């Protein structure tokens, strides 16, 4: 029935949203280039695109968060000005941001009411919102305790609060920016039920996601963005994941990395019953045990936030946990208060962190300083007891930059002036060239363009082939499947199971990632 309704509306009504020629630049970055798009009412419209393609920017413009440099917005067929979010809300638009915009110390109710109060006094507004939340909860399966303080809610519940905020403001158009990135598969399914319910009520939904499966599952139409431009808009029923992937990256995607069989050697790293409790008293690692051998790549799959970051931190020497870890057969204390990033480096562990901009690099440091970063104690970088050998570092950086094809190969350029892929290459060059016994890599290709991805994958495989151990953490199943020699799946701080890539597929891994053993 919903389907019939939809096509009926499409035939008669004007598009719920129409964008014409939207452009937006952040300084030198052209985030959106002359983008046009039409979304019909009562549909779910997907937007996909690589990292940095400009999806969030486009939606933020629609929501009045950013101001477009050029272009026109039409809502229900009439041109509107959206200079700020207030105007967007008035136009019936609601948005759930990739990074939630909630006041952590406020209650759910206060967050919902903020900006949508009925009068100068709070009490009547809150009472009204309380009643209205009960109604919405019934209508859309959006239960959440109105008096709970937001910072004490799970991510999934915080997302519900964001959706409730939009619905409370009577949004007819709901934008969700990568809503499932932080959700477990079960939570994601629940979200999709909600979205279908919204569609059934005649609301329009725009869904940004990286996951083709989700696009295929729930959207009616889908737009593809690449490098700030809109490359295509297609009807979901008439497309395939392969076609979408190709549209996304602009060429046929090589899903398979050429690599020979592994020759696993002795156990390099052995982890037993690793546990970790964070500052808020939440147990993030609940008894992890694993082994990595020389000459193999162990891939860790999992939805972000299931303990992978904590695992990497502890093995990288800067997290505090309990458990037994041996490196090359020698017990090491990487879990105690005395450990730090120097301890692990001294043990032959190199670490390419997940978040290169905040951990792996100092953005204001030059390339050569970043190459010394973490290895500033290394004897070959010292001129004497007092001073570092900056000249030698400069020369070495130059060589590394050339070997890793970092562009431009200028050691004195600050890290912030390199593109994301080149920044990642600087980190990789630094870590891999130390010739470590064990390489920890987190999200090696996040936000990296396709050419660089292939290069990075080759380097990782080459390191393995040189007989080193690699621990690869990625949320991209493709990457895990194509690089790993063994795959462990993490869920809720535990290893749910281990599989060989040749004997498993995305479906099975997806189930494990959802905690279904």
């Amino acid at each position: 029935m919903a389907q019939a309704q939809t096509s009926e509306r499409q035939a008669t009504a004007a598009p719920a949203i129409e964008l014409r020629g939207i452009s937006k630049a952040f300084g030198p970055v052209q985030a959106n280039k002359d983008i046009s798009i039409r979304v019909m009412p009562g549909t779910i419209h997907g937007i996909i695109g690589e990292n940095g393609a400009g999806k969030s920017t486009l939606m933020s413009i629609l929501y009045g968060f950013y101001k477009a440099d050029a272009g026109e917005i039409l809502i229900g067929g009439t041109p509107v000005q959206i200079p700020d979010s207030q105007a967007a809300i008035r136009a019936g638009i609601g948005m759930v941001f990739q990074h939630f915009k909630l006041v952590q110390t406020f209650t759910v109710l206060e967050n919902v009411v903020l900006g949508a109060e009925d009068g100068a006094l709070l009490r009547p507004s809150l009472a009204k919102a309380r009643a209205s939340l009960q109604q919405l909860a019934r209508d859309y399966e959006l239960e959440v305790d109105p008096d709970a303080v937001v910072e004490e809610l799970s991510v999934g519940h915080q997302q519900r609060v964001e959706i409730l905020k939009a619905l409370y403001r009577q949004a007819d158009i709901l934008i969700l920016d990568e809503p499932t990135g932080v959700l477990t598969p079960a939570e994601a399914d629940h979200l999709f039920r909600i979205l279908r319910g919204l569609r059934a009520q005649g609301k329009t939904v725009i869904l940004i996601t990286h996951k083709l499966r989700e696009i295929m599952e729930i959207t009616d139409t889908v737009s593809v963005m690449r490098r700030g431009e809109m490359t295509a808009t297609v009807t979901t029923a008439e497309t395939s994941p392969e076609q979408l992937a190709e549209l996304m990256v602009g060429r046929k995607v090589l899903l398979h990395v050429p690599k020979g069989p592994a020759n696993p050697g002795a156990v390099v790293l052995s982890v037993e019953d690793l546990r970790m409790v964070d500052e808020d008293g939440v147990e993030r690692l609940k008894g992890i045990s694993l082994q990595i051998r020389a000459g193999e790549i162990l891939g860790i799959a999992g939805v972000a936030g299931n303990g992978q970051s904590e695992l990497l931190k502890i093995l990288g020497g800067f997290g505090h946990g309990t458990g037994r870890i041996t490196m090359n057969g020698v017990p090491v204390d990487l879990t105690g208060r005395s450990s730090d990033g120097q301890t692990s480096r001294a043990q032959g562990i190199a670490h390419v962190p997940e978040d290169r901009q905040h951990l792996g690099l100092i953005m204001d440091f030059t390339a050569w300083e970043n190459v010394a970063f973490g290895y500033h104690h290394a004897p070959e970088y010292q001129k004497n007891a007092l001073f570092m050998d900056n000249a030698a570092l400069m020369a070495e950086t130059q060589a590394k930059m050339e070997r890793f094809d970092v562009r431009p190969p200028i050691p004195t350029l600050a890290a912030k002036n390199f593109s994301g892929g080149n920044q990642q290459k600087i980190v990789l060059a630094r870590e891999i060239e130390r010739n470590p016994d064990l390489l920890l890599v987190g999200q090696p290709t996040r936000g990296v363009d396709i050419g660089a991805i292939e290069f990075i994958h080759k380097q990782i495989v080459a390191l393995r082939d040189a007989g080193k151990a690699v621990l690869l953490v990625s949320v991209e199943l493709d990457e895990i499947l194509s690089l790993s020699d063994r795959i462990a799946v993490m869920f809720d701080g535990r290893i749910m199971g281990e599989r060989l890539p040749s004997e498993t597929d995305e479906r099975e891994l997806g189930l494990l990632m959802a905690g279904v053993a």
Partner: protein
Amino acid sequence: MMDLATILQILDSTVRLGTPLLLACLAGLFSERAGIFDIGLEGKMLMAAFFSGAVAAITGSVLLGLTAGVLSSLLLSAIHGAASITFRGNQLISGVAINFLASGLTVLIGQKWFQLGGRTPPLSGDGRFAPITLPFAETLREVPVIGPIYYELISGHSILVYVAFAAVPLSWWLLYRTRFGLRLRAVGENPAAVDTAGISVVRMRYAAVMICGLLTGLAGAYLATALSAGFVKEMTAGRGYIALAALIFAKWRPVPALGATMLFGLLEAIANRYQNIDLGGVVLPVQFMQALPYILTVVILAGFIGKATPPRAGGEAYVKER
């Protein structure tokens, strides 16, 4: 043992000395709750003290003085707002600059206007806030215990004292019971949430900074035209910093702010009255009493007595597009 009269006298002095701290502390509370740190309380208070004293001396009208004092403080607030909201500068540095500006300008202008070495002429009559005798103070005076408390402690302060005390419940109500308060607190915790809710972060923050200016203006005017009779160079004598300390002590809440400022007022009253305090063997020098508010604040900040968590977005400019 102290008798009632002594206790009352000390408490009375506490109220007088605590009032400027209370006003300034509430001022800081509004600003910091909105995410704008303000170590310029001292400077604004000093500026307001000077202009209220100077204008009251020239015109003979304390109300004109008060107006001028508040305006001068608002002007400094506007500078702080421009630096920290519009131009996204460092709020701490702006505060430091404002303190120096006030400390220099008050003497410079004072010397130009009065040639009294930075002092204003003494105020008298309508140039000062006179004490207010509350109804029945005289009649109740002879009633034991209650009478003296009412007469000595509660009655007989200047209007600004009552304003300051009334500002406590009023601030509480404004912050926790009104739309304005909700938005103000939100903008200090997560400005992006406020922005995406369709509220102007800039406007909210300016509003908070201006309320801060108003209240520090009152605090300064109180110093020059009620607590004493005229302006003296550097007359705030670190009270702005004590107010800041009290704000931390009170964990950025209005009612505890009353308690904290009165505690610090009490310490000052005791330090005024007694040079050294003999605690049966241990003699506390007066300097220790003077330093106690600062020491207590450090102890609080160290988290040894409860943790003081400032508003989360405090001290940071709201930057949307890099």
